[in-house]
């Protein structure tokens, strides 16, 4: 018997992982949630059939979306995480002793419940006393926040489905308002490679550029996401993502990471020409 999970990356490209067994499947109010075991990638979580994370490569995504803003901001104390019900971002954030409060806003309570049960690799720190979980629409939650957070991390699903609102201008504008005067917002920024993903990436970049004075994009290699070439957005009111990086200070924290380091931090903002062009087109 062979059982394969297949995600359609484009109408002409499929991505498949051989499944050892399916551990969980349910449909919540918002989406279908599945958890599988595989030989190659370990346990993995999908929402509406889209790959969210695998045990084998989640560290790349979670380290890059978390440590980049945390290494730039001089004193990040109050953090807001939107989406991210798998707990991966929270796991990385709780490693910073200076962080005082982490508000986690996840629309789907069942995702957190399932991750706590089946994905302890990422969901291991959701019980940290600094973490406050809100089961709410991120667009709604942030609307009433003002001058409150140092860092906002938007760990959304794709812009088609429940995560759609997290790619809109009204949301980015609300994030701007919710940040303190030197705040930073980092977001999952889609891929530049396949046409449809690239168009979504450009659309969201345009909206961020219009909402923040500083807006840069950085990249990482994530094998299980479409094309493997993935981008993150760095939007900021004051700090430049590379010039204001304090490498010495971050390195003194002594955090052990598998992907992120401060040299790679600077390098991640150097983008291929075709990506630069896509971004310039909408700036």
């Amino acid at each position, binding site marked *: 018997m062979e059982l394969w999970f297949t995600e359609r990356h484009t109408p002409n490209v499929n991505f498949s992982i051989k499944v050892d067994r399916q551990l969980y499947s349910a449909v919540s109010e918002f989406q279908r949630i599945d958890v599988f075991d595989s030989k190659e990638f370990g346990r993995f979580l999908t929402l509406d059939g889209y790959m969210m994370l695998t045990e084998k490569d989640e560290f790349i995504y979670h380290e890059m979306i978390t440590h980049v803003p945390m290494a730039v901001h001089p004193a990040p104390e109050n953090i807001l995480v939107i989406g991210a019900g798998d707990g991966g971002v929270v796991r990385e954030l709780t490693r910073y002793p200076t962080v005082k409060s982490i508000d986690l806003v996840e629309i789907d309570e069942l995702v957190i419940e399932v991750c706590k049960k089946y994905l302890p690799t990422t969901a291991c720190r959701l019980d940290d006393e600094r973490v406050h979980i809100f089961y709410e*629409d991120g667009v*709604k939650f*942030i609307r009433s926040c003002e001058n409150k957070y140092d860092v906002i991390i938007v760990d959304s699903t794709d812009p088609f489905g429940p995560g759609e*609102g997290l790619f*809109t*201008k009204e949301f980015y*504008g609300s994030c701007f308002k919710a940040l303190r005067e030197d705040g930073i917002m980092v977001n999952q920024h889609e891929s530049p490679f396949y046409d449809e993903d690239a168009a979504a990436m450009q659309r969201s970049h345009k909206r961020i550029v219009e909402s923040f004075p500083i807006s840069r994009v950085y990249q990482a290699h994530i094998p299980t996401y479409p094309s493997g070439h993935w981008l993150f957005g760095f939007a900021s009111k004051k700090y430049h993502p590379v010039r204001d990086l304090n490498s010495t200070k971050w390195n003194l924290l002594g955090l052990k990471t598998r992907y992120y380091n401060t040299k790679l931090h600077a390098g991640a903002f150097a983008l291929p020409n075709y990506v630069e062009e896509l971004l310039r087109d909408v700036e």
Partner: protein
Amino acid sequence: MEQLSQVNAPIYEALRRFRRMRVVPFDVPGHKRGRGNMELTEFLGEDCMNVDVNSMKPLDNLCHPVSVIKDAEMLAAEAFGAANAFFMVGGTTSAVQSMIMYACKSGDKIIMPRNVHRSAINALILTGAVPVYVNPDVNKQLGIALGMSPEQVEQAIRENPDAKAIMVNNPTYYGICSDLKKITQLAHEHGMLVLVDEAHGTHFYFGDNFPVTAMAAGADCASVSMHKSGGSLTQSSFLLMGKNVNADYMRQVINLTQTTSASYLLLSSLDISRKRLALSGKEIFAKTVEMAEYARAEINSIGGYYAYSSELINGGSIFDFDRSKLSVFTLPIGLAGIEVYDLLRDEYDIQIEFGDIGNILAYISVGDRKRDIERLISAMAEIKRRFARDGADMLSHEYISPIVALPPRKAFYADKVSLPLEESAGKVCTEFVMCYPPGIPILAPGELITDEIIQYIRYAKEKGCQMTGTEDINIERLNVLK
């Protein structure tokens, strides 16, 4: 034949039977189930092209219904509590015109509020009926025209005992209702027909706790835009009739202007939508109201905006309010409604129903998702944060009482001359000027052009309202009486 009930949709069922028969078409439409126009078929879908068919015995004929359309109309009448109902494929415009043409011949008087949709005044041009306008009260704060109070109607009846009918606009675009029962009672006491433009009131017939419907109030005719809150395809509507209306004569009136090739896409959409509302309208509209109430509370908590509701009710010109409507007063943030309307689309990719001088209307329906409502609310909060300004110099009224010099038909067909807008003051206009939407004329044929009206037109244009109605496509010139 088996007994039909609201679970049936006779036209839809006939089309499904017909599709299974795989009849070879040597009739119109010439696209022959889409095969003759593949680009269109790819765009609209094969299923859609397959039922774009001509009238024929198994599918009945809208001009003279004897089988499935007749059955479907009977079910619709039952669902709406009407004596008879007709499927309309020329929009609610055609329904409004038909009921006026039924009630009035040339020279007959009809009492109506001036803030009617252009379709009603168009009907006056077609028939030559003479309007007796009741000028609606205006809410001073919001600037919007309200309903007709029974006292106003009573006065109009007293002054025009020879009028043939009274037309009521219920609810208005903004959701405001008149005292329909009282008005109907007054009209009937004086032998006048009651015609209701109920374009925005489909849901009243199916949901709980909505204002009274035209049919329940005893009105004689009602035009209902099924395609608005009822979920059918654009351009499809119902004309409802009470027991004292001669439906067979009404059909003849309708056939004066109605197409002889009614679209089965529109007809089946009416049929299926009626079935859906009859079976689950209560839940559908409970959800709609819940979403509207939620959005209203959230928008009011942003500050500045005023999303109004049933607190406006005053027993007279605002007898009741449609709580499924999301109408918002925008002037306190220093932006005209039309400016908020444009910002929502241009900055936030959100298209709402309309914006006028001081208000916006977002159309809420069962098709909405909670997360889209959240986007709308957030976008409005962002517009306030980014664009709010001091609005001291803003115009605040949507409605100017007209001075009527001639009946619409006389003015429309009179000898006329075209003048630049600013030279037209003091002349009698022979055409329409309106913002669309909402399509309520600022000027109708036969009305005096005043400086106030010219200023209003200039202001609305400057703010970005889409103006329509004049022969001059740029609205720089107006046709006036020679």
